[in-house]
């Protein structure tokens, strides 16, 4: 299977999502640094707190989520905006959340690492490795209800060394659950390179230990991700059990915004540019004559306009009332 067999409509939808993610993240980054200088003050500015952005990793999110429906669950990590966007989370409300506003997905209580949208079955967590067993839970619920929806647990290469990853793989394999474990291998866990943290070269190899399929795919090529993800989703929907996918990507930015990245060799930055999935996809679409510059430019303009509206919404939204801090610990709101 190749790009030719994928409908143009789908390809353009994927392109649009990838470009939207890129535009969104780069725009957020600009807003993030507002008010934080001259001395980097993490709690200042319109976007306070840590910010982990996803440029360079769009293919993992879009290549996977293009196969998913609203009923399918995605459980992301601390770096989750790309998956949220690919899954169709309401971007105005998500952005308001990231700005700490009352109109946010969680009224400003959660922030960028704790995004939740029940209508899209999307959630994420700031605890590395937390996603895996929760996806098993979604899988068991799907199976017991006799539904054919699937759960995708996302984790970084760093997260794949947590016990939860291995426990969850075993559970999902043992119970033959519709779970897809997606490891986004960007080669780094903050400053620690994968070869200093991981005993095997590829996390997909770890599937063998649990008797399930494991595939490693080059994230520079979103079509390759699309194909691998399609197979895993179809297998899960057929009731044949879990799969493990490693998508090899590069971080185009720091671990968090403000990360000086002194630990990162020059070649790694160069490779990141070379492996940029968005630029590669654009090139492919043009080379194969699937689309034209004009068509792509139109998409880009639409995205830029939309992102601007989204940010405006967040900026103009009010902050929550302080008393809100005291509400909502238990059922019943109080």
């Amino acid at each position, binding site marked *: 299977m190749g790009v030719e067999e994928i409908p143009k409509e789908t390809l353009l939808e994927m392109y649009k999502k990838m470009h939207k993610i890129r535009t969104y993240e780069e725009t957020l980054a600009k807003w993030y640094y507002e008010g934080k200088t001259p001395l980097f003050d993490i709690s200042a500015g319109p976007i306070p707190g840590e910010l982990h952005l996803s440029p360079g990793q769009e293919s993992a999110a879009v290549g996977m989520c293009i196969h998913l429906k609203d009923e399918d669950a995605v459980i992301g990590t601390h770096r989750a905006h790309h998956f949220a966007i690919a899954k169709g989370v309401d971007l105005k409300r998500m952005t308001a959340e990231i700005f700490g506003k009352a109109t946010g997905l969680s009224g*400003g209580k959660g922030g960028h690492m704790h995004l939740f949208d029940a209508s899209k079955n999307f959630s994420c967590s*700031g*605890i590395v490795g937390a996603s895996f067993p929760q996806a098993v839970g979604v899988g068991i619920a799907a199976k017991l209800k006799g539904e054919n929806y699937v759960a995708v647990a996302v984790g970084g290469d760093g997260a794949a060394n947590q*016990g939860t990853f291995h426990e969850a793989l075993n559970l999902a394999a043992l119970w033959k659950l519709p779970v897809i474990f997606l490891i986004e291998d960007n080669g780094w866990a903050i400053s620690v390179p994968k070869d200093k943290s*991981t005993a095997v070269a590829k996390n997909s190899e770890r599937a063998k230990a649990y008797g399930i399929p494991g595939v490693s795919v080059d994230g520079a090529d979103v079509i390759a991700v699309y194909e691998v993800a399609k197979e895993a989703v179809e297998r899960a929907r057929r009731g044949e059990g879990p799969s493990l996918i490693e998508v090899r990507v590069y971080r185009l930015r720091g671990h968090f915004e403000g990360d000086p990245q002194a630990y990162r060799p020059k070649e790694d930055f160069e490779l990141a540019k070379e492996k940029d999935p968005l630029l590669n996809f654009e090139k492919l679409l043009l080379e194969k004559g699937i689309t034209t510059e004009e068509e792509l430019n139109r998409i880009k303009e639409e995205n830029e306009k939309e992102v601007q509206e989204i940010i405006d919404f967040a900026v103009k939204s009010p902050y929550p009332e302080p008393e809100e801090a*005291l509400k909502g610990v238990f059922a019943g709101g109080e």
Partner: protein
Amino acid sequence: MAVVREITFAQALNEALDYEMSKDPKVVVMGEDVGVYGGIYGVTAGLYDKYGPERVRDTPIAESGFIGTAVGAAATGLLRPVVELMFIDFLGVTFDQLYNQAAKMRYMFGGKAKISMVLRTTCGAGFSAAAQHSQSLHALFSHVPGLKVVMPSTPYDAKGLLISSIEDDDPVIFIEHKGLYAIKGEVPEEPYSIPLGEADVKREGKDITIVATAAMVHKSLEVAEKLEKEGVSVEVVDPRTIVPLDVDTIINSIKKTGKLVVVDEGYPRASFASDIAALAASKAFDSLKAPVKIVTPPATPVPFSPALESEWIPSTEKIEKAVREVL
């Protein structure tokens, strides 16, 4: 002659680590990003270059794994691990190795095992780091017999207490408030130790006692200073170590002033604050001239939005209000 300079809390900790590593080859440092990066707050800066990757070990993100490794290494008696848990909130990932293993081995094995290790970790809200990166969970550790719990508030205390903690023959949970790393204070260049279990009276007073921990010590001192202008004399006691606790210093202060406010960033229930309040009731009841008040965050997770978080954290206004009510 002793050389005393102004350095930051983070630098003071770094000096303690450096001193212990240079003195004792058994001391090893492990944790996420502690090596090349020097720790995300810079506390282990320079140690990797100086002592090498075997003694300053970057670990995978596997807290249960590498903290359990530290427990096992300490149990051999051949190493004294100082292991870093990046945020105290990640405690859940590794708790068994600490509360069922490290904490219990000496007792459960009839005094024949010894776990000399330090777990350094960070606490504290105020940075919009939200519910999973902002907590102050010292009460969870101090509930379990067998763990010592240290919580310094000044650069001077940080250095002396870390040296004592590393030299201690029991597992020590050393908690660093993120809001303190950049504060500066006078610290001797020479190594020195502060015994675990000795409170420090940060300010003497006679009308009311505030017992406060970590960042709350500084807020309490601000309030004390303000009230002094009105002729109110506030004593601020910093226990410095939660376990062991210097009961005498706290009780003597309460007996002197007859009034107590406890200020702590932990949640209010089953907490450090309620523990000290109970102590006052059981050991200084006759001296108390007013009900004890505690100033803590509410019993809710830490909210993200600055509009909510600033309501959540104990403020100088709330401390002042509590002090005035007790007076």
